[in-house]
């Protein structure tokens, strides 16, 4: 078990190092010189060279990389070439907004998928199961931003129940926070929920075929009791894997959904950074997103061990 922990931690750290190199290298080979962008096309070559020196862009790439990485490790994300503002605090603020969105989306996805997938599996030959299947099939085909626009049209424009966009920090006005959170979280969560439902369904179907479930029924448990007590934890293993992978999709989805709902999250920051050609900002945000995905996958690995005792002795 300790061995596995060390191994997983190692994998996590190595993938973090590799992805930081990739992110850095990608941004470095991208055409476009930050100093030229900052000064405009009419600036003299001397002025551009001077600014490059100030930004530290004249140093060898490895030096620049380790400088950036060292900063990251201390929580210092550097200063924007464009706005000359420190990037760290902005990213931190925006990250909190995005986390609310992603976590709320994830919870909605789970709350939809766990019961729906289970019912679909348990009644996969019956009308109710097939109807749910059709619904989730439809859900899988809808992109999150489209779901967002549909939700806005129905609940904000037509019914006027919820605000169409905007963001209020929970500390400032919890009610408004929740009202504004619901639609974007739903547009992220429902689509992910439809996808997750299919995985829950197949995980539960697999478990239903297991011999130990027949043993549980031979003991005197009714089918749903047997599934609940003996199937849940076993079915959770593959579902958790998908959940980890979905987080990456949710983060990407959040980038777009934040745009649709005018939410000041990491996604909006990233898109702003791209349109302002704020290369360091983009580089930092991408790295933070990558870190979030890797961290979740690391936690998923640890969760396996908690779920499946067979992994503890291996």
């Amino acid at each position, binding site marked *: 078990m300790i061995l596995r922990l060390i191994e997983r931690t190692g994998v996590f750290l190595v993938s973090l190092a590799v992805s930081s190199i990739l992110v850095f290298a990608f941004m470095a080979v991208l055409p476009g010189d930050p100093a030229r962008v900052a000064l405009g096309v009419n600036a003299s070559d001397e002025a551009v060279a001077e600014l490059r020196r100030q930004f530290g862009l004249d140093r060898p790439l490895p030096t620049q990389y380790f400088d950036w990485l060292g900063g990251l490790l201390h929580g210092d994300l550097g200063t924007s070439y464009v706005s000359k503002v420190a990037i760290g605090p902005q990213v931190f603020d925006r990250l909190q907004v995005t986390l609310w969105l992603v976590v709320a989306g994830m919870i909605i996805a789970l709350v939809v998928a766990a019961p729906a997938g289970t019912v679909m599996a348990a009644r996969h*030959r019956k009308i109710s199961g097939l109807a749910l299947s059709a619904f989730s099939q439809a859900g899988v085909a809808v992109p999150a931003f489209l779901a967002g626009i549909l939700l806005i049209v129905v609940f904000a424009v037509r019914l006027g129940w919820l605000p169409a966009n905007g963001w209020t920090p929970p500390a400032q006005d919890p009610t408004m926070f929740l009202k504004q959170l619901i639609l974007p979280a739903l547009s992220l969560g429902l689509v992910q929920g439809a996808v997750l439902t299919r995985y829950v369904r197949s995980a539960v179907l697999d478990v239903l075929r*297991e*011999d*130990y479930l*027949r*043993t*549980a*029924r*031979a*003991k*005197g*448990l*009714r*089918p749903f009791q047997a599934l609940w*007590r*003996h199937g849940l*934890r*076993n079915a959770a293993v593959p579902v958790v894997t998908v959940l980890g992978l979905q987080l990456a999709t949710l983060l990407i989805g959040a980038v777009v959904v934040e745009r649709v709902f005018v939410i000041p999250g990491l996604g909006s920051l990233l898109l702003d950074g791209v349109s302002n050609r704020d290369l360091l900002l983009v580089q930092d945000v991408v790295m933070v997103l990558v870190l979030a995905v890797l961290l979740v996958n690391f936690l998923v690995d640890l969760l396996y061990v908690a*779920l*499946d*005792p*067979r992994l503890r*002795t291996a």
Partner: protein
Amino acid sequence: MNDVLTVRGLSVTVRDTALVSDVDLTVGAGERVGLIGESGSGKSLTALSILGLLPEDVRAGGSVRLDGVDHELVGADERRMSRVRGRDIAMVFQEPMTALNPTMRIGDQLAEAMLIHKTLAKPAARTAAADLLDRVQLPAETLRAYPHQLSGGQRQRVVLALALANDPALLICDEPTTALDVTVQALVLDLIVRGVVDRSSALLFITHDLAVVATVCERVLVMYGGRVVEAGPVAEVFTRPRHRYTEGLLAASDLETTSRRLTTIPGNVPPAGRFPSGCVFRTRCAHATALCEETPPWTGSETAGFACHHPAGVGND
């Protein structure tokens, strides 16, 4: 004394294919009955339909009654069947490696068997679980183990302990030692017999190993093609088989002391639904005649008889 299990006219079908037809089977209180036949004869389906645990799509017909249970078991709803399963009838399956929940400790799986039927309260159930393990010769530490930490033989003993947890009136074992190492088969068989004798439970023992039946059972039923073709006391059936299929089975096994050659029944067991009309064995039987195209009637009593037009042991053939 009342019979524990009374099966009458049991049939099992999947869509329109008959897998088991017209099975009559009685097990007396405390009696040990064997059910033998080649693989594909319908033994497992017979057992599963008694317990009401047939796979989806597969349907049972006919009648299954249990002493002390005031309703028909065939077609009974889950609520009623769940009260019978694990309390009045229990079952040990063929494959011990997959029969236990891999994510639950053995002690919890054992205790649950008693908690479901409220035969014991929680603290008592834990103590009883340790006692059950002791009776299948497993140490008390096994309570805290997970299935993957045990060998196949140990797991099958846990499954046996589970099945015997509520002193069932009837224990069904479906090839309980087939998947085990030969070295542990004898121990598991011994524990099964001791388990049912100690509790005065009846035993329905399914196997294709005739030697095992000879040591474990008092009475035996021979199945082929989803039908019972012969029944009787073990000593009787094994020394003077009447049905030609039973005769072939005995010749193929080493029980027959007179013939040392390795004989097998010619041909293979047909797949489900491909058995001939009339006598199901006639496509493989050396004694078949035109008469065998008609279903042979049952000769003898329900507990000792056979269904063959040209039975063995009449002339000198």
